[in-house]
């Protein structure tokens, strides 16, 4: 072992330079057609433009970066080997129940409760936090399908869209309120979940992925083209905002408003705060609901189905019902989030429900660690805040977003909080904990 460590430390400088040189060559080949050369439109015809300095800077960064990264990595690995030899202890990295996680969870809850009060005059913070919570809720919904039941769904945004459009149509065409439409939209999304789930029961893995992707696209194409129903690409406008048990958030008028009823002075941020607490409440209910479901027989069946479907069938679990219930429940939660989204924006169009959105929600579930409720929160924070922080260099933010997805996966392939612990486990003596 020691010799091996020494050998790693003594990788010669020429070898390192050769290695970095190879990387620089690849960078050159990658860079020439994209960075070195570009075409610009000039008087209706394309003309070549060159950017050699940028290309050389790019190659230099790749060369030096590779050199340093490789050196640092070798050092780190050598140190780790020495340390592991010294302790001779096998570190169990699969520690599942970390007591810290509970505290982080409660801490996050506390922060989320006081955040809008602390920032009540900063609309941007509260708005961003609301967006994070929408994604948390979507992530928890998709977590039922992907994380617990292990069914790869690439078209989750379809249910989000169904929920949003159900509320949009019910409120603008029939004058329904937010609270009346919420259960209907949830039921509607759930039935779409069953419609999608039914034909895909026999499919596994990647076939399921492509069918769900296709389903998501079908819903979007229908929304774009069925103009009489959905308003086409223009979407639905002036969707009423949710009211506080019938009390609207409006400047004082003839009817009682939220402000006049409680004797407060009207302020526009009351609605923002209300929306924030509304989605917080919905998300917390979702969390409670899902974590309770996980302990019911059907929830345990989801997790068992994820681990081994054949064994499940052999044990007499009805695979059809279990899968359909996961689809329906996940879809319903997505539908709820959609209703909130429509009510918050006041405007919806098919543009909000593209495949990219599905990819982001799936990324939240997978990056967070499949099946982990807290992981979803952390991943939503990362994925929503990353583009927000990148606003200063706005055009690079999606580029950084894509790169971050790759890097996080390479760094932690199982997700930020990776664990696949079953919610219930058998303990000798028949007691389960």
């Amino acid at each position, binding site marked *: 072992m020691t010799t091996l460590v020494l050998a790693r430390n003594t990788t010669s400088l020429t070898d390192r330079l050769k290695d970095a040189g190879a990387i620089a060559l*690849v960078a050159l*080949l*990658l860079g*020439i*057609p*994209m*960075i070195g*050369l*570009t*075409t*610009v*439109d000039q008087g209706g*015809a*394309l*003309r*070549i433009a060159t950017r050699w300095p940028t290309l050389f800077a790019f190659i230099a960064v790749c060369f030096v970066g590779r050199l340093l990264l490789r050196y640092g990595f070798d050092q780190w690995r050598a140190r780790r080997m020495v340390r592991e030899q010294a302790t001779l202890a096998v570190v169990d990295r699969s520690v599942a129940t970390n007591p810290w996680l509970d505290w982080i969870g409660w801490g996050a809850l506390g922060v989320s409760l006081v955040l809008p009060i602390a920032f009540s005059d900063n609309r941007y913070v509260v708005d961003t936090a609301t967006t994070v919570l929408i994604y948390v809720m979507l992530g928890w919904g998709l977590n039922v399908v*992907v994380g617990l039941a292990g069914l*790869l769904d690439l078209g989750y945004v379809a249910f989000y869209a169904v929920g949003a459009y159900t509320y949009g149509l019910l409120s603008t065409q029939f004058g329904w309120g937010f609270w009346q439409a919420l259960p209907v939209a949830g039921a509607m999304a759930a039935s779409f979940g069953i419609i999608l789930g039914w*034909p*895909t029961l026999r*499919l*596994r*893995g*990647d*076939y399921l*992925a*492509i*069918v769900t992707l*296709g*389903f998501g*696209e*079908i819903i979007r*194409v*229908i929304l*774009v*083209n069925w103009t009489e129903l959905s308003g086409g690409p223009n979407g639905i406008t002036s969707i009423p905002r949710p009211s506080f048990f019938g009390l609207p958030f409006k400047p004082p008028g003839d009817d009682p408003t939220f402000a006049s009823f409680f004797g407060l002075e009207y302020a526009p941020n009351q609605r923002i705060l209300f929306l924030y607490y509304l989605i917080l409440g919905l998300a917390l209910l979702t969390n409670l609901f899902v974590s309770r479901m996980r302990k019911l027989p059907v929830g345990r069946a989801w997790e068992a189905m994820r681990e081994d479907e*054949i*064994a499940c069938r052999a044990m007499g679990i009805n695979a059809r019902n279990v899968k359909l219930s996961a689809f329906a429940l996940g879809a319903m939660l997505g539908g709820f989030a959609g209703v909130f989204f429509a009510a918050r924006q006041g405007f919806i169009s098919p543009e909000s429900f593209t*495949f*990219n959105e599905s*990819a982001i929600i*799936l*990324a939240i579930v*997978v*990056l967070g660690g*499949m099946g982990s409720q807290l992981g979803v929160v952390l991943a939503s924070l990362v994925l929503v805040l990353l583009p927000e922080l990148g606003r200063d260099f706005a*055009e*690079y933010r*999606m*580029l950084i*977003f*894509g*790169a*971050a*997805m*790759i890097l996080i*996966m*390479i760094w932690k*392939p*199982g997700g930020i909080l990776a664990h696949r612990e079953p919610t219930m486990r058998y303990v000798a003596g028949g007691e389960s904990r």
Partner: protein
Amino acid sequence: MALALQQLINGLTLGAVYGLIAIGYTMVYGIIGMINFAHGDIYMVSAFIAVTVFTLLATFSISSIPLSLLLVLLVAVLFTSVYGWTVERIAYRPLRGSTRLAPLISAIGMSIFLQNMVQLTQGARVKPIAPVLVGGIDLLTIDGFTVRLAYSQILIVFVTIALMAGFTWLITQTSFGRQQRSCEQDRTMTALLGINVDRTISLTFMLGAALAAVAGVMVTVYYGVVDFFIGFVAGIKAFTAAVLGGIGSLPGAMLGGLLIGLIEAFWAAYLSAEYKDVATFSILILVLMFRPSGLLGRPEVEKV
């Protein structure tokens, strides 16, 4: 009748392009069992390279059509396969042997990255090029409707047939083909037999990218416009084609591509152009319901 014939020609052309891209999906799926989501964007990158090289050739006033096509194909294939290699090396190789979802997520990340990189470096606007291959043959005229076979369509179909023949030979007859097929069956055993699995997988990605590059050049010649978003739609259609034909099967990918192209062309002509994507996906769902392993795929045997 004339319209049907015209749509048959258009559908076959489109299907040939989908088939070429689908082969990349199906090979990668066959060898490492993952959906290479960035493959559509590799195709998009190659279309941009084609635009650049065509413009470059125009700058040097090389006007011979066969020469410029050949040059563009060569350059696009070369650079695009480097992209294919890099994508595998950066985003997929570190994740080999982890969960099935991890490479899928990094592939989606790679797809977002490539799209935005091209948008940043090449501009977000649609790029039109001067028509390369104009004209065609008027086949016949029925009731004032002329069925036309464009030269670019002939080119696409012939290049596709040639590539398919070459590829079948490569996979079935050569040493690399045997290595590739044995990696598909059992990677550990293949490694034990002294075959460099990593290299085989890298080469597979490069070959898939090369075929996508040819598809990208063909589409640039055929439509004359590219933008940074073409990869997504083409990628999804091609993946659908690969699944329809039976993922992992090369003739299946081609057959699936042709079917998708024909369905799209006929649906757009006779039913509704807006819902052609719905038709594609609905037929995919129907096929998978009744034949879950695709048209030419082997049924997957599950072992406990």
